[in-house]
């Protein structure tokens, strides 16, 4: 087991770096940005980040590839119907659960 004082040293460094990365831009950028290119960039970035984080990671987020693909399909359909976040999340989880449950009968 790691010594308590050593642990806290690492914890403070780890949390400090993580917090500064989040805090500095939020505190330093207080004015509305006028530049059209930068505003366009900031408009697209969130969607790009979420897309990159989802594909391909979602395929490996469940017990097997099949349940993940069907869970994703369910999420896409519910989102196209513009359902709420919680509905989409529960729908996808439910699909994964049912698919994996059914699969237990087929070994």
């Amino acid at each position, binding site marked *: *087991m*790691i010594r308590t004082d050593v*642990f806290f040293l690492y*914890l403070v*460094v*780890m*949390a400090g*770096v*993580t*917090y500064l*990365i*989040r*805090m500095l831009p*939020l*505190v*330093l*950028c*207080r004015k*509305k*940005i006028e530049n*059209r290119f930068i*505003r*366009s*960039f900031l*408009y*697209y*970035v*969130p*969607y*790009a*980040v*979420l*897309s*990159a*984080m*989802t*594909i*391909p*990671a979602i395929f490996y*987020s*469940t017990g097997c590839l099949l*349940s*993940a693909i069907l*869970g*994703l399909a369910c*999420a*896409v359909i519910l*989102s*196209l119907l513009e359902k709420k*976040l*919680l509905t*989409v*999340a529960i*729908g*996808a*989880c439910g699909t*994964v*659960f049912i698919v*994996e*449950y059914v699969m237990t009968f087929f070994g």
Partner: protein
Amino acid sequence: MNSRKLYLRGLKDGFPICLGYLSVSFAFGIFAVGAGLSIWQTILVSLANVTSAGQLAGVPIIVGSLPLVEMVLTQFVINLRYSLMSVSLSQKLSPRVKLLHRLAIAFGVTDEIFAVAISQKKEVETPYMLGLITSPVFGWVLGTALGALAGDILPEMVVSALGIALYAMFVAIVIPPAKKNHAVALCCLLAMAMSAAFYYIPVLSEISAGISIIICALVSGLLFAWIAPIPDEEKKGPSDHEADGAGKEVAT
């Protein structure tokens, strides 16, 4: 809307994130205790950082007592995406949000909280952000504690099903604007294609997930800001305006 109502609305919007975090942090709890941290240390790591990828990378560095500079570099690279999000969020926060409140909100900038905040139609105020942050942080710490205490408290199939929750939420955030705006849709497809390339192509797959996400987001964002800039701000509310305005830009 008064502060109390705003806070409650944030709390409600944060609830799906809380559910998703329970499963992810549960897995982290199991991992960290297995790696050699005590239960209390594991919980403190989650409480102080609230970041999945950063924590996963950080625990082995603590346990192995590797050089501190390695901790700094790893956390910096993996979490750098938060600074992009914070810049974006700084434009979404109402000018009324004070410095002290910004310092508090900064603690809760995670992928999911950011995504929900940015998908709001109007500028967001302090109470809403605090409400939005409350339940995910609670879920993150609670899930960690449960995972650390008893790795097999939930049946495996339930953990497996919860694993997709956060990604399903991302899908729900990205698809509605992508449906209305072709530039957003294409930008997302490019980011996905690049991300898949980073994952599956042998040489590229050696690049850490944190860096590859930054590269995907920067390239897609810069390219589309260049070829499909959003219209200049007029008197309409910024986000509604941008959402349908950028589509017209592409069509013309």
